[in-house]
């Protein structure tokens, strides 16, 4: 079977998690794509940890406001009914369990629910930003990642080797191969995305994965 990296499928599947009224924080990078695929009849509230509820899409060219950015410093808009607050309030909201879903990028994620995404010692050290608070505080932590590194190694591990962003906080991993729940130190494959098969995923991933009885083969569109 040939693997073709597909970030859009990851974003599309994650976008199906949300119900109207839920509060969602999307990390910079791949997770941001999720916002593009939320169904039209679902009204979520995007929280931005730099101090906003009701994060809206990018403004039209020339309409940028230098005082209104997302957590990646890109110009954004605020939705009608949104509001602004300071960083202590923002993280009060996050740590306090008022964010339903956080979607975060991945360097490594392991079957214990550990996530590493902020530091490769001696090489790349961006810092954790708000990711540690988000993984600790959000009701559901979704790790969003291409299944494989450029080297071909799986980003889903038995045990993370990089410094952790979150210890045992990840609930769900969505890759371009499938959807995995994390429970009891195992990954549980609950959805396998076409054209991949559970057997192929298990073969290519060096981690303990249980294929759920009701695991479905899903066509992402």
């Amino acid at each position, binding site marked *: 079977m040939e693997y073709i990296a597909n970030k859009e499928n990851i974003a599309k599947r994650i976008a199906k998690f949300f119900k109207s009224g839920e509060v969602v924080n999307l990390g910079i990078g791949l997770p941001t794509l999720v916002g593009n695929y939320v169904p039209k009849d679902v009204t979520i509230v995007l929280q*931005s*940890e*730099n*101090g*906003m509820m009701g994060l809206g899409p990018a403004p039209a060219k020339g309409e940028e*406001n*230098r*005082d*209104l*950015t*997302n*957590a*990646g*410093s890109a110009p954004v808009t*605020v939705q009608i009914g949104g509001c*602004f*607050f*300071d*960083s*202590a309030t*923002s*993280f009060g909201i*996050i*740590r306090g369990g008022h964010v339903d879903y956080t979607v975060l990028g991945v360097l490594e994620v392991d079957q214990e629910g550990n996530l590493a995404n*902020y*530091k490769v010692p*001696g090489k*790349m*050290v*961006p*810092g*954790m*930003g*708000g*990711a*540690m*608070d988000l993984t*600790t*505080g959000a009701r559901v932590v979704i790790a969003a990642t291409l299944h494989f590194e450029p080297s071909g190694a799986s980003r889903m591990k038995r045990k993370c080797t990089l*410094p*952790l*962003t*979150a*210890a*045992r906080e990840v609930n769900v991993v969505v890759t371009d191969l499938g959807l995995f729940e994390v429970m009891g130190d195992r990954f549980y494959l609950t959805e396998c995305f076409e054209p991949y098969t559970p057997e192929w995923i298990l073969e290519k991933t060096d981690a303990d994965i249980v294929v759920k009885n009701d695991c479905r083969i899903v066509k992402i569109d």
Partner: protein
Amino acid sequence: MIEKPIISAAEAAGKIREGDSLMVGGFLACGSPHTIIQALKEKGTKNLTLICNDTAAHDLKSGKITGVGYLVQGKQFKKIIASHIGLNQETQRQMNAGETVVELVPQGTLAEQVRAAGSGLGGFLTPTGVGTEVEKGKQVILVNDRPFLLELPLKADVAIIKAKKADRAGNLVYNATARNFNPLMATAANLVIAEAEEIVEIGEIDPNEVHTPSIFVDFLVKAERLEW
């Protein structure tokens, strides 16, 4: 209400002394006091400890710099306490070369540490960072069998912050996501200098809409540089 002195950015920079700890408001340069930052860059004061959400941006290839990145470039900090340095390659270079000490703190913890200092708390228990490198050297306290880290308050000698509007008494109003750490830092430094785009007479800000009460602000500076 008494009026607070309006000073120049150069005068503001002059109040920051070598060796001071310095809080700078802003989030990736959004809502940073750019006028004072530029004056401090010109002044060249060294051996400062920076407390800021991040070190803004510095692309070593293009040479593009924003916000406190100018001060990092001038090697004005001996130590940097921040949650994120990912867009500033010069900060990462100085850290890896051992030229500058960089302490990375989870963003929510950093915000709460500043608030705790301003609020007279001796510390707080946060679940953030448990089981990670952030835990190292910290007291772990169990509450109802759940582990929390004891995090301590973070004060500074000087805070430079940025508001959309100030009145002459020092009441401040922020705009949109340019608020971020500014109101917290206003409470947690011995000397607070607020740069404002607009400085109005006392009474022109609705008391229900004040974000930072006047008593926290020592000096006002009229913002002249708005771009990052």
